[in-house]
């Protein structure tokens, strides 16, 4: 959807029913590469966010979704001119729906060298459990 929004800006206008988030202040966004692994206890989310520092990273858990916004901390000094570019300055935005399968109170996050590692413990309700037979 971010791609469509960047190609056709009028698409990003909120439809009649208000959307949960206001994305106008973010400017162009790009979805970072990410990976989700699952164990019995938790989901592990790894997001690559090169150029993002702790202060520029915002993780919000709201309702049934998790939202990660990473702004780039580095900006080109005025006297540097571009020879060649492959990267973009767009803000990273990743939204993941978890359908309440995650206990958002116990989320643990760690950012190191441009890699964000999130541990999302599963909600008690969906953890596998053994049922004793009486």
């Amino acid at each position: 959807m971010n791609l469509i929004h960047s190609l056709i800006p009028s698409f990003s206008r909120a439809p009649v029913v208000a959307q949960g988030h206001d994305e106008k202040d973010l400017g162009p966004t790009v979805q970072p590469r990410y990976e989700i692994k699952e164990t019995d206890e938790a989901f592990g989310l790894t997001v690559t966010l090169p150029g993002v520092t702790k202060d520029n990273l915002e993780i919000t858990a709201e309702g049934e979704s998790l939202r990660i916004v990473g702004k780039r901390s580095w900006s080109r000094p005025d006297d540097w001119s571009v020879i060649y570019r492959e990267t973009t300055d767009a803000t990273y935005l990743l939204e993941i729906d978890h359908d309440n399968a995650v206990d958002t109170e116990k989320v643990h996050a760690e950012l190191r060298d441009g890699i964000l590692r999130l541990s999302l413990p599963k909600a008690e309700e969906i953890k596998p459990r053994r049922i004793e037979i009486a």
Partner: protein
Amino acid sequence: MRYIRYNYPTRRSLPVAAFGRGAWNGLESEIDRLFNAALAGTQNAAAAGRFPVDAYQDTNNVYVRAELPGFKRDAINVEVVDGYLTLEASREAEGEKGQTKAKVNRSIALPEDVQTEGVSAAYVDGVLTVTLPKKEEAKPRKISVAVK
């Protein structure tokens, strides 16, 4: 291999809830899913040993910035050979078959006015910045002539 995830019927997918939700919401996630599927191949570019690189210059230096998230400093190798800048990085990755070594590398042709001495590199927040000083004769010079 891709999975299309099974979604448990939640409050959101129940027809009653549809009144409260925009007609766009379902379409949006469907479009997201299609785009993600279509772009899945391109997103693996990094896994294929490539990473994006930028080049900048100012009056004294040429700067090369590369996005290399998640590497240790001593696993990054920067070399200047025959007018080419070679960036190489490796890391131990946990694959399905235990520990595997992932290696990425890239060579960039340098402009002619770059000096091979005095090259420095810094790795901050997953971004490697290599600073290459320009040759003295390539720098703009200001000569003041005394007028008698």
